[in-house]
């Protein structure tokens, strides 16, 4: 992946200064909205007390990851319109979440659930099903953390820094303040990250087109260049295959996003259902930013940049266009942008392991302090794992696994999201559907070299593999539910009550201890 970018002293200095700033913030965060960090609720969810503004920064910084900012323009650079599905995807995700997530927030707050698997266990009284959901979350999160490192690697490459040691240092720092401050660290760093990212993108989309002769010129050179690729791209998707793939990728990705543990962790850390709902009309500001960022791919084409691999398109464009000092700001924005999701993901993975593996199978009667201590250690282990992964395995491996991650996460939709509305499905049916969906989706993806779309039999159009696997999952779950009937349903063991889900039930009660600080 080395492009041989020149070493830029000024850019490295600016970059390092900003990196130092967030490091300090990460440690200071432990004292922010002070709580007992010996409780998992405090360490792993920030005490569930973040208001609208913090939640907006945290969720935005968490969902729109550094890798996204590298990979989406890279895909647009490589294939054109097909890569732009990220825009409808991140438009549709918020109305979808507006409907579903307040219910989950409400029930989780009532029963002190920390993870989706906690909820599934409470709802279905099934350790097997809860473990399946926890396992899926862990499996999908690990490569995602690794990809954040990959994002930092590309940025460091752009600065002319080679070798692994800077990456190791960056991650060691990240690991240290996540350990001490928990979710408060990424929440605070997100403020810096988001400001830098906004500044970078706004400057990029005003300054770069002015140097390239305007948007007209950018789109027309992309339109000329894309059909000449080895695999011809297009500025506008044409033909049923491209269009069905586009729509199903957008819908399936939108449905999967908030099943990811790191998304759920950020949602559950908010103070009230109202905060979650209000944020869904504010978060599209990020969508707009991502859409603009995607167009950087076309700018790289218009600038006539030749890169050995698509993921270098954005770094190469920045190196080509920006003066050194701003290059430092832009690259810091992306690298710090990797730290926020990496921290939240490792916390989410730690919460899952602690609650749904350690407490469930190893030490059922462990104390609160032990629970939180285990989570802290797991967050370290997870990050070391990701680092080893990136250093010793090919990057493509992490990318392929992350693609599979979407397929896997979507298979928990029936047990987590549909369960918020109905308990019609039999718990064993859900487990069977999950297992079949996982195997089927993985098999399809692996058998065709990790292309995310699959040619549907009979219909003969290509659609997002994850949605096809979900359809199989639902059919299996429904058939098993009907066949088993009333046997083994354990409906009476459901510890959640219908009232707990009801719209805005929870927000009428006073929020849990809100101490002085940013609301």
């Amino acid at each position, binding site marked *: 992946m080395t492009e041989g970018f020149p070493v830029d002293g000024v850019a490295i200095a600016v970059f390092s200064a900003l990196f130092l700033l967030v490091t300090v913030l990460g440690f200071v965060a432990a004292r922010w909205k002070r709580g007992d960090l010996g409780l998992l609720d405090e360490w792993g969810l920030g005490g569930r007390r973040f208001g609208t503004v913090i939640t907006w920064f945290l969720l935005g910084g968490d969902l729109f990851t550094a890798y996204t900012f590298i990979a989406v323009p890279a895909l647009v650079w490589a294939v054109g319109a097909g890569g732009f599905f990220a825009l409808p995807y991140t438009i549709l995700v918020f109305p979808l979440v507006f409907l579903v997530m307040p219910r989950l927030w409400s029930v989780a707050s009532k029963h002190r659930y920390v993870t989706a698997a906690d909820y599934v266990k409470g709802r279905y009284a099934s350790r097997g099903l809860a473990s399946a959901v926890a396992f899926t979350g862990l499996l999908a999160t690990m490569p995602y953390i690794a990809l954040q490192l990959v994002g930092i690697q590309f940025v460091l490459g752009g600065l002319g820094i080679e070798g692994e040691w800077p990456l190791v240092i960056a991650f060691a720092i990240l690991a240290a303040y996540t350990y001490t401050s928990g979710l408060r660290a990424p929440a605070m760093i997100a403020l810096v990250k988001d400001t830098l990212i906004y500044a970078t993108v706004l400057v990029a989309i005003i300054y770069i087109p002015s140097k390239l002769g305007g948007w007209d010129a950018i789109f027309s050179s992309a339109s000329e260049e894309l059909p000449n690729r080895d695999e011809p791209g297009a500025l506008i998707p044409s033909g049923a295959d491209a269009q069905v793939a586009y729509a199903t990728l957008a819908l399936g990705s939108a449905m999967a996003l908030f099943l990811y543990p790191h998304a759920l962790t950020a949602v559950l850390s908010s103070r009230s259902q109202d905060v979650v709902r209000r944020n869904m*009309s504010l978060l599209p500001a990020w969508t707009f930013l991502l859409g603009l960022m995607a167009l950087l791919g076309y700018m790289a084409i218009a600038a006539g940049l030749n890169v050995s691999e698509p993921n270098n398109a954005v770094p190469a464009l920045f190196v080509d266009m920006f003066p050194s000092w701003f290059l430092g700001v832009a690259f810091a924005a992306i690298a710090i942008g990797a730290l926020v999701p990496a921290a939240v993901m490792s916390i989410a993975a730690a919460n899952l392991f602690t609650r749904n593996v350690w407490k469930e199978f190893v030490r059922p009667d462990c104390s609160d302090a032990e629970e939180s201590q285990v989570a802290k250690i797991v967050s370290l282990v997870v990050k070391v794992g990701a680092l080893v992964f990136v250093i010793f395995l090919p990057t493509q491996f992490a990318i392929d696994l992350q693609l599979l991650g979407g397929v896997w996460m979507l298979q928990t939709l029936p047990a987590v999201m549909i369960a918020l509305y109905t308990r019609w499905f039999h718990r064993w049916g859900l487990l069977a559907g999950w297992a079949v969906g996982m195997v089927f989706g993985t098999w399809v993806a692996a058998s065709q070299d990790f292309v995310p779309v699959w040619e549907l039999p009979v219909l003969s159009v290509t659609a997002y593999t994850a949605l096809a696997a979900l359809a199989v999952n639902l059919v299996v779950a429904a058939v098993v539910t009907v066949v088993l009937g009333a046997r083994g349903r354990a409906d009476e063991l459901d510890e959640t009550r219908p009232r707990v889900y009801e719209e805005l039930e929870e927000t009428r009660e006073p929020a849990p201890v809100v101490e002085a600080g940013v609301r």
Partner: protein
Amino acid sequence: MRRWYLLLALPFLGLLYPPLYSAEDPELFGFPFFYWYQFAWVPLTAGLTYLVYRKTRPAERAPAQGSGRFSRT
């Protein structure tokens, strides 16, 4: 009150049928239709979501939010 939620179906209808917007013309500020049409849905969806948020909020919450403008349908 629940009928307001139907508004949230609009972005799905507008975006999940790509033949609707897979076209170059009409252009806007140099952007082909395919691109600006989808960008336009970002503020539109945010606005719709906000509207639904306001319309489905219970009356009890309003004073805490500063602005007193809300309605309960």
